[in-house]
């Protein structure tokens, strides 16, 4: 789940860890920041991400992460799966919770 979100964030272009953390916190997805680092490391070892060092104006140099072609492919797969799941869940949610008595509620299809 978190993998998916991180990959999604990186589709918009390379960014560095603190940036990703900021966005994930905005979306209330992570509580402690450290969660991200093992995850990034794992994704990189799986070949989905690559990174480049860049000097920053204030503070230490930063690692800018970006998607690899492999990462892009996996993201597309995950995206498709997500769409499908969301559609299914949406359908189920819009269905009435209990069977109403006939004539009570108009049936929507």
């Amino acid at each position, binding site marked *: 789940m978190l*993998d998916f979100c991180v990959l999604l964030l990186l589709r918009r272009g390379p960014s560095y860890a603190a940036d990703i953390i900021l966005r994930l916190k905005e979306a209330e997805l992570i509580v*402690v920041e*450290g*969660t991200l680092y093992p*995850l990034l490391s794992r994704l990189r070892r799986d070949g989905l991400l690559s990174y480049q060092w860049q000097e920053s104006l204030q503070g*230490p140099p930063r690692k800018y992460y970006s998607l690899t072609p492999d990462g892009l492919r996996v993201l597309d797969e995950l995206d498709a799966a997500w769409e499908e*799941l969301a559609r299914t869940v949406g359908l189920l949610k819009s269905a009435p919770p209990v069977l109403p008595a006939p004539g009570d509620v108009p049936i929507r299809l």
Partner: protein
Amino acid sequence: MKKNFTINLFGVLYNIDEDAYELLDSYQRNMRAYFSRRDGGEEVCEDIEHRVAELLSDMKAEGVEAVNIDHVRSIIRRIGNPEDMTGADEPADTPSDGGGEGPTTPPPPPEPERPRRRLFRDPQDKMLGGVLSGLCKFFGGNDPLPWRIIFLLLCLLSWTSLAVVYVVLWALMPEARTAEERLQMCGKPVNPQTLNEEIMRGVDATRNFVNAPAMQARARGCLGTFLSVVVACLKAFGIFFLACLLLGLLFVITLFCFALLAGGKAVMAAGLPYWGWMEVSTQAPALSWLLIVFFVAAFTSVALPLYALIRSFLRRPDSKPASAGRHMVFLIVWLLAVALAIITGIATGSFFDDAMDRIEQVRPEAYQEADMRSGIYLTGGSWGYLKQGGWVFRPL
């Protein structure tokens, strides 16, 4: 007033209070200890160190002159303890397509059983090496003072031989360095919360100890003064025993050197052909065997510590230390070798001297016999010289 350090993180300098530095350092060490067992751990540690540096430089930009302990606490709260991180990461490892909507219910924690206690030396509550404190905690106690008193009494009763046990335990028991190890020492469960508490407690404890040792003593009241007197006495006794032990050690070392000299003489004699080793060994037939045993034992008792020393230099600091069992075997073999070397060395030396004495007694008669010609005694060399000059001796 507080002591201040300057630390260098990736080329940028930060001012940091002493206690804040302690906390940050133990946090990092804890992190390294935790992640060193996982693949990619080195990288994760480095990234987190970078993040810490980033947050510190943000603080600097906000005008924080010196980082204090509350700043470090907030950083730790933000980044979290290592157990938090992988805890959130691991469920993602299970193969699941995409992910579900809504909060996934975490699986129930699989370890409700009591955590196993481990034996460590306690560096935070120690008189000498923290051995008794560690033992006390291993057996579920809290205050090591009665243990110390009983141990010292036993020491007195056993004529300091228990002090040797103490030193051996000191050498064998590892020190509880990280928060995780301290928790294991006390038999507490290791989880993010307890770890955090333990790290904070450790820093608070050292701070209290530095700032107000007198306050603590007063808080204990009248009994406290008495106890502190007892503790001072115990400390003095401890130093006395240590001194005795050192003296004993010095004695053993001297004995060892003496044995080396005595045995070495015989070894030299055996190595040099003109000394007539054959003669010596016929005088003392057991000497050859003693000499071999002595040589092996002396070699072992010198080579083993050297080997251990070299290994401890080459060992990487974060690799796992050898097990207590191996330490024990090592120590026993070494002690045996030293004892054997001393005994055989001295025995060899005295045997050799005896043999030499006997040879000295026997030799003149044997030589006289050989160099007696026509009733006249001259040394072998002189006979040769006379013969060269064409002299002939005839009996009258």
